[in-house]
């Protein structure tokens, strides 16, 4: 498709269900204040594990946005996803009754799907017998349940997908939604990500990889991207949603425009399922391609939202990649890691971070990297330590680098008619 026929895509609604705040306003205020959502695990008995902390979403009432007969028959990741989508749709002011809903779709990211019910049913199946499995098994476990339930609840008849690329799922979901609108396959996309990984078996699986922080005595200080004292990432749950809309469609209904989405890329490191490619060349390529897609240069970028997981491997490789792409500008551009306050919500992370990126442009505030007290000598850029910063930012880059070396980047810009 030629550049001249690509349609412009704007962000007209936001929703966030994060460990440090339910609702966009609560999440953003906590994030600006470097308030962590990490705490001791209460969702299950974590005592067998060395790591016993997580980012748990508190106070989400599924009955606030789903009828009880649905709310009771879906897994938690669907609650998180629809919680965020419902806020974003309301925020957008879209009147779906007046829309051609064949032109409204939903692409979300989720790395894992409905794990909780899956684990419960494994116990049932191998305990009471496999013929005793619940008939809801398939519909509760399948990762595309979250996008399907958004479509069922709102009657969205356009493209409906769930993308599963581990820690980059949400970013890929937003990027692929961007393409659907850009290329004319939809006018409006409900996009973002949802993840509910805080289940005993799954938590044990991450613990077995020895990648989780063991800072159990100070959970709020455990996620510390780029800090010398980091000891792994913190597993979290969450959901976030953006409404992407074709510009003329948004104009016709007088929608509030937060920002424009102008660039997206997807690459692979083709290196290892868990370890980032150590030179960061694949991450650098992802950033370059996103900037090229946006038709901007590195010096145009006013803020980078880092993948910043709080692991040595990621933080160092990502820093190298940023230096490679941005050259001298790497030392001038502010960078921060939302995961310092949310932990790592896998398939939701990129979506939560996209919300933060849009708000950075909209509010003129860069949120800090919490807990960055003593930077790793190999991480020597401006990561906006501990305190938010006022700044007029016109263009932001959001990085997501998933397990399996699945990379995705997004570029958002201040909207200029």
């Amino acid at each position, binding site marked *: 498709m030629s550049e001249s026929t690509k349609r412009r895509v704007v962000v007209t609604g936001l929703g966030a269900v994060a460990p440090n705040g339910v609702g966009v306003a609560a999440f953003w205020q906590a994030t600006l204040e470097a308030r962590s959502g990490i705490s001791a695990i209460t969702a299950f008995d974590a005592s067998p594990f060395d790591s016993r902390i997580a980012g748990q979403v508190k106070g989400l009432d599924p009955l606030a946005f789903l009828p*009880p*007969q649905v709310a*009771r*028959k879906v897994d938690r990741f669907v609650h998180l996803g629809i919680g965020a989508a419902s806020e974003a749709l309301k925020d957008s002011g879209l009147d779906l009754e007046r829309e051609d809903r064949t032109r409204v779709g939903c692409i979300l990211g989720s790395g894992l799907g409905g794990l909780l019910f899956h684990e419960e049913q494994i116990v049932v199946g191998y305990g009471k*017998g496999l013929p*005793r499995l*619940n*008939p*809801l098994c398939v519909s509760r476990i399948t990762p595309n349940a979250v996008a399907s339930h958004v479509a069922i609840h709102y009657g969205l008849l356009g493209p409906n997908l769930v993308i599963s690329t581990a820690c980059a799922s949400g970013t890929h979901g937003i990027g692929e939604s961007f393409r659907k609108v850009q290329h004319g396959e939809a006018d409006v996309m409900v996009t973002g990500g949802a993840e509910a990984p805080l289940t005993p078996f799954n938590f044990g699986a991450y613990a077995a990889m020895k990648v989780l922080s063991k800072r159990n005595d100070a959970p709020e200080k455990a996620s510390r991207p780029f800090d010398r004292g980091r000891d792994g990432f913190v597993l979290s749950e969450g959901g976030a949603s953006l409404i992407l809309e074709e510009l003329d469609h948004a104009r016709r209904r007088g929608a509030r425009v937060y920002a424009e989405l102008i660039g997206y890329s997807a690459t692979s490191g083709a290196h290892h399922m868990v370890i980032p490619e150590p030179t960061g060349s694949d991450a650098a390529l992802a950033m370059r391609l996103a900037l090229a897609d946006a038709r901007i240069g590195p010096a145009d970028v006013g803020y980078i939202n880092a993948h910043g997981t709080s692991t040595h491997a990621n933080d160092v490789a990502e820093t190298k990649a940023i230096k490679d792409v941005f050259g001298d500008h790497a030392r001038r551009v502010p960078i921060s890691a939302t995961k310092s306050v949310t932990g790592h919500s896998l398939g939701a992370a990129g979506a939560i971070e996209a919300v933060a990126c849009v708000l950075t442009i909209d509010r003129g505030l860069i949120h800090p990297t919490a807990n960055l007290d003593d930077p790793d000598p190999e991480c020597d850029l401006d990561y906006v330590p501990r305190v938010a910063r006022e700044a007029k930012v016109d263009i932001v880059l959001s990085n997501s680098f998933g397990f399996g070396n699945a990379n995705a980047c997004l570029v958002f810009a201040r909207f200029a008619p």
Partner: protein
Amino acid sequence: MADAVFDKVEAILTGDLHVPQEKIRPEADLRHDLGLDSFAAVELAYSLEETFSVKVTDDEMASVKTLGDLLNAVRARLAGQSPPAQ
């Protein structure tokens, strides 16, 4: 009509299957009056098996039309006319 079997079936219908209480009458047609679609019927059979520790066959579920038929089938099964599920 009201007995322990009725109470338990009613709890399944008004609970997991979200059938409004006022619709629950013995003559109610499961599909047309109670609004149970084909998948809800599968869920109902599963819940009956879990609640009463009986086996409900696909043919039985297909032949049952009303709530009264269903209650009679469960009562017959509990009375030992067919072997219980393990």
